[in-house]
């Protein structure tokens, strides 16, 4: 008799494809939140698989803070062209110019909080009823509590105490006017799973994930990339290091690691022996013990 067992990666893939098809079937106007990071790239790859040989039936939505790595933007545009997908950009700069979002001041100022305003505005403008994201439960403690189908009220807020129970493989996406869902097909994936999948499927990712020489400064225990958006204090020294990024966010908040991992295989090995969490170098998570939870409650993804 044959062996009717799937490996864990194939099982996670089948689960994610199932979720993506449920989104397509249950919602009128869904979209993929695409940041250009590895998780949203994997979600997009899975969406391609889920609807093959049709094109991805969702537009990609990028919430552009204006503080991007140029490499991420180049990658985004190439991928969109390759997929023939529709790209919708929500601009944080525009939200600031319109007075809807207020820019932070000070040395560690970043546009993370402003992102939520633009995201919610974009959802409202385009009337999205489901936004598919690449968030994983292993990323952060507040995310461990998240459902596959995460209900948001008319203000886009997440209420961790009032989540719909999710049983078996039956997902309930019913909603009232003005509400929407965030959907996370990678909920059950770990950082390691994502890297193994990228390696085994040979999925293209931005060059930033591979170790390369970069100008950086040392701040709060991490290597922050030098860019036009960062204020460098007199006592901070610009150095050139062999750097790679484990997660990608805004260029102002994404800390890099010293690394020599310049191939996917080496990255997998490095992740396997990592002693720090993936988001350990994210300035946005270090603001307080509950920064992710607080942001999610306000409507962050």
């Amino acid at each position, binding site marked *: 008799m044959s062996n*009717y067992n799937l490996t864990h990666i194939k099982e996670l893939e*089948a689960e994610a494809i199932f979720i993506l098809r449920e989104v397509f079937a249950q919602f009128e106007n869904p979209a993929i939140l695409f940041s250009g990071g590895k998780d949203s790239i994997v979600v997009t790859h899975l969406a391609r*698989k889920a*609807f093959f*040989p049709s094109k991805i039936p969702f537009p990609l939505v990028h919430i552009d803070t204006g503080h991007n790595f140029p490499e991420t933007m180049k990658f985004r545009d190439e991928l969109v062209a390759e997929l023939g997908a529709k790209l919708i950009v929500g601009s944080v700069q525009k939200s600031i110019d319109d007075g809807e979002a207020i820019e932070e001041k000070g040395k560690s100022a970043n546009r993370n909080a402003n992102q939520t305003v633009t995201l919610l505005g974009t959802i409202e403008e385009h009337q999205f009823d489901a936004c598919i994201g690449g968030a994983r439960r292993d990323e952060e403690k507040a995310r461990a509590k998240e459902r596959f189908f995460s209900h948001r009220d008319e203000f886009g807020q997440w209420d961790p105490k009032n989540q719909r*129970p999710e*049983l078996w*493989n039956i997902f309930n996406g019913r909603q009232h006017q003005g509400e929407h869902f965030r959907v996370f097909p990678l909920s059950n994936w770990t950082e390691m799973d994502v890297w193994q999948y990228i390696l*085994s499927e040979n999925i293209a990712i931005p060059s930033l994930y591979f170790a390369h020489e970069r100008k950086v400064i040392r701040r709060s225990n991490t290597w922050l990339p030098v860019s036009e958006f960062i204020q460098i204090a007199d006592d901070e020294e610009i150095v050139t290091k062999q750097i790679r990024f484990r997660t990608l966010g805004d260029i102002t908040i994404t800390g890099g690691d010293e690394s020599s991992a310049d191939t996917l*295989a080496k990255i997998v090995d490095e992740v396997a022996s990592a002693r720090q969490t993936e988001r350990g170098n994210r300035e946005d998570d270090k603001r307080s013990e509950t920064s992710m939870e607080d942001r999610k409650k306000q409507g962050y993804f």
Partner: protein
Amino acid sequence: MSQQDNIIETHDNKGYLNMELLRFTTAGSVDDGKSTLIGRLLYDSKSIFEDQLEQVAKSSERKGLEHTDLALLTDGLKDEREQGITIDVAYRYFATPKRKFIIADTPGHIQYTRNMVTGASTANCALILIDARHGVIEQTRRHSIIASLLQIPHVIVCVNKMDLVDFKEEAFAKIKEDYEAFASKLDVKDVRFIPISALNGDNVVNRSENMDWYEGSTLLYTLENVHIGSDHNHIDCRFPVQTVIRPKNDKYHDYRGYAGRIASGVFKPGDEVTVLPSGFSSKIKSIDTFDGEVAEAFAPMSVAIQLEDNIDVGRGDMIVRTNNMPEPTQDIEAMLCWLNATGPKPKGKYILRHTTSEAKTMIKEIRYKLDISTLHRNEEDKDVKMNDICKVMLRTTKPILADSYKKNRNTGSLILVDEGTNETVAAGMIV
């Protein structure tokens, strides 16, 4: 995407990729040491990162504890940490070189039935914790009855806090005997017993030096080796259609693929199949994936099926083997676990969701409430509240393609959704 082509290389990824996935849930009351056990499993299997551990050490210190409280690893929300309560189910992940694990970490005290049912619905295995000092208590019976109702294939009874009974074999043997006597009334096929101390790590990941009388395996070894290959139903072929893929482009002008995830059974091209509820028969032309056609597909694979004949098939329909079909019925007998603070309305109307299909339904009759401590069927008291388990008769507006839950967890399960609030109010298992 040429930038990357030169940095891809062949890599021996086999070791990482050839792993199975085991989903398990933990059950126990508040002080049984559930969080400590999960913390211990994560810690001893080296699945905790240094920065996480630092955070926990700091929190422990702030609380005035002498040791690092591993239980703090699992409380993710502000309210949970502040109030020391656990809100709703959380999911944890860890891996050993042998398997990947998903833990459904369910809160022990408030709302326990609802939460345990949620965690148990996808689990291959349930860990039931018993405090060695207290033995089999009402809570143990409740958890075991739920594990049995939800047909969790494997149960591991962890007799915890063995350090508090001087690691005595008699204490363990007595609990095992009591549990077996009670479990003989249940429908649980595979039960194992392990004496542990989650606090000190005895028999969790590492063998205990304090209990040389115990010859069985450690908890982690058991989790790594319990046979899960037979947990899926590979007999009854069921393919609920999620959506239809019709590219209508030049290359795939006439392509019509029925997309879905195989709920059970094994499908092959050439198989005689019937589409329900219409009853039309055809043959499988091909089973397609992005990576090419496959020679066979089995649960839980996500694929697209093409049929030889052009028949009307859409979401909610089910492709099955012609010689083995579920029963289309509008009258469904089911065990319900009520999940919502508002109980069922008399003659209440709800939306029933079963696989990918949906129908309006009415709770025609509540037959009895189940006392989940004694298994007693109370036919007098029909006032169903949150966390109650009851047997009901449902009447739907269109036929549901029902299997019994005992035979098929995927096509035997359903949920009820309140039309007004859109909340999922009940989990159901078809009898």
